[in-house]
Structure formats: C-alpha cells, structure tokens
C-alpha cells in the first residue's frame, strides 16, 4: 500500500500522505517541527525588544518606574484574562478538530476570533488614552509627574513598539483565523488532517506567551512605587 502512494495521481484532498513521508505520524511531526522552527525565529524577533527593555530599565530605573505607573493595571489584568480565554477556546478548537466535530470547531475558532477582537479593542482604548495624555514619544510628549521625563520617552517607545508588534501579530492571526473558519465550515479538516488548525493554535498560544511577559514588564514590576522615593 505504501508503495502505491507515490504512484497515486495528484489529488485535491490534502489529507493524503505526501509521498516523501513514510507515514502520517512522520508527516505530522515534520509540520510541528517546522512550525516550532518558525516560532523560534519569533522568539528572536521579540527577544531583541525584551533585551532593549531590560537594558534601558537598568540604565534609567527612575524614568521607567514613573512611566510604568501611567499604565492601567486593571485594564491590563482584564485584557490578560481575555487573551488567556482566547487561548482556551483555541486549545478547545484544536481538540474538536482532532475528534472531528466540525460545528464545534467552527464555533470555537469564531470565539477565539471574538476574544482576540476584544483584546485589540481594549488595547486601542489604551492607545487612545495615551494619545489624549500626550504620552506618545515625540516633540509634543508630556508625562505629568514623571521623574526624568526625557527618558520616560524610552519607556513609551518600547511600550508602543512591543505592544504594537504584539498587536500586529494578533491582527495577522485574526486574518488567518477568518480563512480557517471558512475552510472549517466547508469541511476541509478531518481528524486525519487538521495541520493548519494545529499549527495556527501554536502561533496563537505563542502570541499569548509574549503577552504573558509583556504584562508584568510594562504594567507590574514597578507598580509598588519602589525607586520613586
């Protein structure tokens, strides 16, 4: 049977085993490793920004501590809850893809999209708030009550750079989700082959992990006011 696979004509059904793999498990493992290789490049992508944050916080602790108090702790915590909720619905979507429940797969992908949208909406509200308070680095930058106001611009540059890169990953993710929801609705995925759902799940959870670190670094670690006195 295995030898026939290579001779089979090209067919539209992607669940077919590609001829260069020995068996479906090997094909699955290869796609998982491929996805993780991509995620490692993403770790490097975000890693540089995290390093920049730590390096400048080390250099200007007072500026970072006072600027960090400008973030809204409760909005940040609520938004973290929303994003973790979207990770749960994504994990359940992969689960329903694996057991072949098409309608539940579509439902949970849609819930993931909605929760991602709520997260981005709250983020947009926070950005707008920063805009209103002139807390955007540049010629009109202001930071009421900030210590070392000049260097608080570094904090806000990193704040917008890191949360902006994170948000752009979510916007790209939402676009991919729309396609996956359509394909799932059309019945493209079966328990034998749902690799795009599984790999998208890895991407979505990775974006969640980035936020899990952004939340304490930008909102929490200088909250108690240490360094201001």
């Amino acid at each position, binding site marked *: 049977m295995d030898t026939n696979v290579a001779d089979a004509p090209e067919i539209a059904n992607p669940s077919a085993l590609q001829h260069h793999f020995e068996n479906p498990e090997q094909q699955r493992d290869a796609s998982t490793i491929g996805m993780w290789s991509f995620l490692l490049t993403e770790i490097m992508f975000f*890693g540089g920004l995290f390093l920049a944050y730590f390096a400048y916080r080390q250099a200007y602790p007072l500026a970072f501590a006072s600027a960090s108090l400008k973030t809204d702790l409760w909005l940040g915590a609520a938004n973290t809850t929303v994003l973790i909720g979207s990770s749960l619905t994504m994990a359940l979507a992969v689960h329903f893809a*694996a057991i072949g429940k098409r309608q539940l797969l579509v439902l949970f992908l849609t819930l993931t999209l909605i929760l991602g949208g709520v997260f981005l909406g709250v983020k947009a509200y926070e950005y707008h708030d920063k805009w209103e308070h002139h807390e955007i680095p540049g010629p009109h930058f202001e930071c009421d009550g900030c210590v070392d106001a000049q260097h608080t611009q570094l904090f806000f540059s990193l704040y917008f750079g890191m949360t902006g890169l994170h948000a752009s990953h979510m916007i790209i993710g939402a676009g991919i989700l729309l396609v996956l929801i359509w394909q799932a609705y059309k019945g493209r995925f079966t328990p034998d082959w749902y690799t795009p759902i599984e790999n998208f799940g890895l991407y979505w959870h990775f974006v969640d992990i980035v936020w899990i670190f952004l939340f304490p670094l930008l909102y929490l670690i200088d909250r*108690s006011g240490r360094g201001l006195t």
Partner: protein
Amino acid sequence: MASAHEAQNEHHIVPKRVYFLIFAALIVLTWVTALVSRIDLGRWNIFVALAIAITKASLVILFFMHVKYSTRLTKFIVMCGFFWLSLLLFITMADLWTRSWMGVPGR
C-alpha cells in the same frame, strides 16, 4: 523502542478537563501577580512577577501547545529556542549590571 516511538506519535487527545484546569490556573496566577504588584516587596517585586510569568508560560507551552505530549525532537527544539533567549538576556544583562561596579567608563 519501536512500539514506544509509535505510542508517542499517536494522536494524543488531551481530555478537555485538562484545558479547563490549566485555564483556571492561568487566570488565578494573572490576578495574583496583578494584586501582588501593588505590595512593595522591594527588589523582590520583579522576581515574583517574572517567576509567575515563567510559570504561566510553561503551562501554556506544555499543555496548550502540547509540548508535554510531543516527540523528544520537538521538545529539544523548543528548549533550544528558550536556551538561546536566556543566553541573549543573561549575558548582556550581566555585562550591564556589573560595569558600574568596576568604574569602567561608559557605565
């Protein structure tokens, strides 16, 4: 060896209960870290916050991303990524932290 390898590669269906438990743990940790941040622990604030973040990230990687149930090769690749990140952060920060101790120009 062969049978163990095959068993490892079987479609591993994780019970839904596991996802809900991990979700509950992540939510509790989120609100614990948010509340603890308001208490002045001096230099320990950052360590508590990062320890909780690393715990949360590990839960997501192991259970939501199925790394706990994946092949050793996948686990190795994931470890490589985070090991590289720790080299980047620790070696650079060790330099920046200690420069001022020696009075080296340029901090």
